[in-house]
């Protein structure tokens, strides 16, 4: 009974949040047409006249997430392969916790690392090369966010690679395959569905991340895929729109709920896609 109540509370909370977001969004969409929200290319909630086009934010979110993934996927995956296939047990025992320590760093701390160290560094390098780099750039935020999700990818992938039965490795080695051929042709294909879902999980984590972007990528909602420009993301706008406000009745604050709704569908779609992917490969491999 207690257990039932506990799970009911969790489900009810989720439904409650969804209901409140839906309701407030509904109020917002009475003021601002849905189409101009989804396809508008201007985001200026405090301007006059105010503009509520989500495309610049969507572009910023996607840009930063892509940069983070390009950074984190090879780093995370390769370190997982090293840890599980090549590192000696003693080395693995000391390396893995260190890597996981990275996951424990609060994102605020990563955020000011991005803003105070990485962003100025990129700017210096950029100006040195004659490029026009904003003091806060999508690249800085994306890189640091990539560092943030490295432990997530490596730790999950490491577990998944370890779960590949030893008999498959033995079978491959006994065929006269080298250890690296074994990893590339047998172990990784067998672990692929799991690795894909780990990366999907990392993507939803990156999309939902706020602090690093607030501090390192700026607030300017530019519709741009230039990694050197300042961009803004959905989460950042939600945070800035609601911070300090007590009244939730203006278009400006209500738009935060609409953004929240979009974010919700985004991650939901991603999770469903991840599940689909895993199921498809399962059928293929087992």
């Amino acid at each position: 009974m207690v257990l039932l109540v506990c799970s009911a509370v969790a489900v009810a909370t989720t439904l409650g949040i969804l209901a409140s977001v839906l309701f407030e969004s509904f109020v917002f969409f009475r003021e601002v047409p849905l189409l101009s929200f989804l396809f508008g290319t201007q985001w200026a909630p405090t301007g006059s006249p105010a503009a509520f086009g989500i495309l610049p934010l969507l572009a910023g979110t996607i840009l930063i997430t892509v940069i983070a993934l390009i950074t984190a996927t090879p780093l995370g995956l390769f370190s997982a392969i090293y840890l599980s296939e090549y590192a000696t047990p003693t080395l693995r025992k000391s390396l893995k916790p260190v890597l996981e320590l990275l996951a424990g760093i609060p994102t605020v701390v990563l955020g000011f690392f991005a803003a105070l160290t990485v962003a100025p560094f990129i700017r210096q390098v950029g100006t040195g090369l004659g490029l026009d780099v904003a003091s806060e750039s999508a690249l800085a935020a994306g890189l640091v966010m990539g560092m943030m999700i490295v432990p997530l990818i490596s730790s999950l992938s490491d577990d998944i690679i370890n779960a590949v039965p030893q008999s498959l490795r033995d079978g491959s080695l006994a065929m006269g395959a080298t250890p690296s051929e074994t990893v590339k042709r047998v172990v990784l294909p067998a672990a692929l569905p799991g690795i894909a879902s780990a990366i999907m999980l990392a993507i939803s984590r990156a999309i939902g991340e706020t602090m690093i972007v607030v501090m390192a990528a700026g607030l300017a909602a530019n519709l741009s895929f230039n990694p050197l420009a300042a961009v803004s993301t959905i989460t950042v706008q939600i945070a800035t729109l609601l911070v300090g406000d007590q009244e939730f009745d203006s278009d400006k604050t209500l738009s935060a709920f609409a953004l929240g709704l979009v974010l919700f569908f985004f991650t939901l779609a991603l999770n469903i896609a991840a599940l689909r992917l895993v199921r498809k490969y399962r059928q293929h491999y087992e």
Partner: protein
Amino acid sequence: MNDASPPLMKPPLPRILADRPEKMAARGVNIHYGDKHAIKDLSITIPDRAVSAFIGPSGCGKSTFLRALNRMNDTIPSCRMTGAITLDGRNINDPDVDPVQLRSHVGMVFQKPNPFPKSIFENVAYGPRIHGLCASKAELEQRVEESLKKAGLFGEVKDRLHQPGTGLSGGQQQRLCIARAIAVNPEVILMDEPCSALDPIATARIEELIDELRQNFCIVIVTHSMQQAARVSQLTAFFHLGTLVEFGDTDKIFTAPTDQRTQDYITGRYG
């Protein structure tokens, strides 16, 4: 690995060795697993184109010794070996022998069928691909087909070569693993209790196959089943507590063993 050449004491020559050339041989082999002395001063001569069976109670070292024959024990960090093991007279532990190359000459089939998570075709094509044995796609296809035929599996899978190998039944999977091992043209095939996970019908099928394969390969099989050893092998080696107690023609081992321990084991007194 290859220190002081052990005394050349020839084990008693089984009759069957008289008309078949030696394929592999071990002289004074000792294997340690950490602190455990798993194989003690073992010498044996394994003939070509015959089935040699290793029998003995669990933990007697027969699988350990089998894995030494293609240096699979190299993958276990705590495992050390001394003495000499030769393939066609050449020491397989010589520094200039690449274990990866060795394993393409000495293939292995495991206790539990372990097809790769790939299609049936890709499972068999795996070895030829990594060793670059086939120049063209047609050649590869032909080799896959031949290997599947030799493993007696082609008829059952010819219409679904591109479906996952893991979708086959246990016995078919094991024959797929045998086809995979054959595909690289090994000279020796090591089998570590290949039927222990299979039902009696699948087992009978594999045993028939082993009997056919001995025309072309040197086969060494570890088995828990004395009946199986009696059915498929020409030579039987009885292991006990890390030593090779007796090695000889299968019919002789099972009808007139010279050692009391062999006698006790085959009559079911322990094991």
